[in-house]
């Protein structure tokens, strides 16, 4: 029993953190928010250079063949920075699916270009009414009739459906199915899609942890800086206890997410329930921290001039997506009771 990341995993986290700190300040997120998704393009390119975009690709495909556990900390950092774009879909879900189920021609067309940062994948499961980042993606991997399909975005119709998080370009999508879209039929497409759903959920949970940490950092900083009644508001016991509660909820969510990463990476029999626990705790922590951070900020937090709102809205969206609390609690409940 050893519950800690390896030095390699931490080094990768530090790499991602450095890139995002340098290249993805709040002003970048804000630019995307205001309708300029190209503002994040350079970040994507730098991440690709460091190997993060292709990290889950097999070595044959020029990737690092990294596991779900290896990608947990990078996704946490991506959440911390609120970097917009189909990162989960591309890294955690799309590349492994393409690698495992793509035909040779699909792989030739997409795998290397995506893994090296020259293309973006979005993934649509059949239970999704809308998908994010369709505007900026190059290829869609879609579940249809229980089987995976690989469709160039040029063949996909996209109807925007604005999200409250304007950096998440949501859309309804549709496509005319053709033979060329079908992925390999000599693999168990259903099983791969199931696995893909768990991976999407896990990576989303990791992002939620990062969002939570950032909102808490913002609130703590604000509580130290803002003075009322002649002292920092962070000296008020009510503010202290509010932020202490936020920290507790966040810190008890983290090991749940890390553990789910390990369960996925080592194919534990409990991995579905572990992923559900991760999503429940991470989602509840992030929305709870959001609420505390907003209350600590007061009126300033209630404006779109303050950066907080971009993280808060991402947290609301991600907590409800890839199975909301009701869905995952029910899944846990069926196992436990």
């Amino acid at each position, binding site marked *: 029993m050893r519950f800690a990341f390896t030095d390699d995993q931490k080094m990768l986290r530090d790499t991602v953190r450095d890139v995002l700190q340098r290249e993805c300040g709040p002003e970048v997120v804000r630019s995307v928010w205001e309708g300029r998704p190209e503002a994040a393009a350079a970040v994507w390119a730098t991440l690709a250079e460091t190997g993060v975009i292709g990290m889950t690709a097999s070595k044959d495909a020029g990737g690092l063949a990294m596991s779900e556990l290896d990608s947990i900390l990078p996704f946490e950092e991506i959440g911390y920075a609120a970097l917009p774009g189909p990162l989960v879909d591309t890294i955690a879900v799309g590349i492994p699916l393409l690698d495992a189920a793509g035909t040779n021609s699909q792989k030739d067309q997409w795998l290397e270009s995506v893994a090296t940062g020259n293309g973006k994948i979005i993934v649509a499961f059949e239970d*999704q*009414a*809308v998908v994010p980042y369709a505007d900026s993606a190059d290829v869609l991997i879609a579940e249809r009739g229980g089987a995976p399909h690989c469709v160039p975005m040029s063949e996909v119709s996209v*109807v925007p*459906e*604005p*999200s*409250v*998080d304007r950096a*998440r370009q*949501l859309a*309804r999508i549709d496509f005319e199915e053709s033979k060329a879209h079908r992925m390999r039929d000599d693999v168990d497409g259903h099983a791969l899609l199931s696995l893909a759903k768990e991976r999407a959920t896990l990576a989303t949970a990791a992002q939620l942890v990062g969002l939570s940490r950032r909102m808490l950092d913002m609130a703590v900083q604000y509580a130290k800086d803002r*003075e*009322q*009644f*002649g002292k920092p*508001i962070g000296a*008020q016991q*009510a*503010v202290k206890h509010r932020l202490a509660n936020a920290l507790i909820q966040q810190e008890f969510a983290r090991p749940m997410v890390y553990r789910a990463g390990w369960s996925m990476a080592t194919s534990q029999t409990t991995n579905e329930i572990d992923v559900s626990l991760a999503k429940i705790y991470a989602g509840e922590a992030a929305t709870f921290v959001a*609420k505390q951070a*907003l*209350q600590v900020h*007061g*009126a300033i*937090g*209630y*404006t*779109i*001039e303050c950066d907080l*709102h971009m993280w808060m*809205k991402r947290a*609301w*969206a991600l907590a*409800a*997506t890839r199975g*909301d*609390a*009701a*869905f995952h*609690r*029910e899944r846990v409940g069926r196992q436990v009771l």
Partner: protein
Amino acid sequence: MDLDFTADEEAFRKECRAWLEANVPTEALRSGDTREGFRQHIAWENVLFDAGWAAVSWPKRYGGREASLVEWLIFEEEYYRARAPSRVTQNGIFLLAPTLFEFGTDEQKERILRPMARGDVTWAQAWSEPNAGSDLAALTSTARRVEGGWRLTGQKTWSTRATFCDMAYGLFRTDPAQTRHRGLSYFMFPLRTEGVTVRGVDRLDGDEGFAEIFLEDVFVPAADIIGEVDQGWKVAMATTSSERGLTLRSPGRFMATASRLVDLYHRHRDRSDPVLRDQVIQAWMDAQAYRWFTFQTVTRMMQGESIGADSSMNKVFWSEMDVRTHETALALIGELLELDEGAESAVDQGQWMKGFQFALAGPIYAGTNEIQRNIIAERVLGLPRK
């Protein structure tokens, strides 16, 4: 105790309901916190005033109906039930007017009240300053006495709809030798005049609901002070108490939200788990609790009691109930909750997410709930201040 409405009260309700059914615009107006929507709402306020419904509890001479507090609550229930437009005049009618009735001169009342209630002159509050939010007494804006009046200088913030309004009211330091609560006066001042700059600030939901007001040597005639010079704190406290209490948030609003929630539940029954069902029940019950608490309070007021710090309990209860109710609605909606107004697939045109964001301001404005709980502990329970 008689919790039935009297025949007169029932008749009043019937009249409200009939008028609202006949007159509430069938198509929803744009948000009153946008420029275009504000104009639409003012047109509605004109209609409301001309039919005598703009300020039902006011004396007839100012355009009211001299309705009792109970009748006012009935009016509110009917108003929200009819899904009538939100009141962009509320910072005048519900916050400034009570102060004028208590401290204003006859001249001020004659001059100000009717145009305020009709929406001909619109009012914004200007309480906070960048470094005086919860700690209102830390304000630094000043008023310098000049021939015939005063010159105001300073900066106000979180001024709701000030970008669209004509006038504002707030506190300024008239005695520079005094600090904190002393030496302040309560001014009404124009927003569209020389020396005033208003900068809109977009709210969480993207609407331009707030503004900053910059004042540089803005002339205000002596007649536009409410109450006595240097006594502004006392005058203002009367207003903040009505802001917290009944007038700002009457039960009708939350009863209407609760019944819309029940309706949403029925439409989303397929995905709603039993825990959400219980939360829907809780939301409905809480709206009831708020209603009965309010009728009890109103009876006390009608018997001549003053409510004082008790109104802080109202504020905490309704603001946190409103957040919980909207959270329940969003949980019922599930994954699609993030869809914004204008998204085709949005449930109920995205109004629940919009309402949720609006509700999140409840525990912050009109005195944060932290401040309210301090007030309850110190003034109602008598716990020591330090």
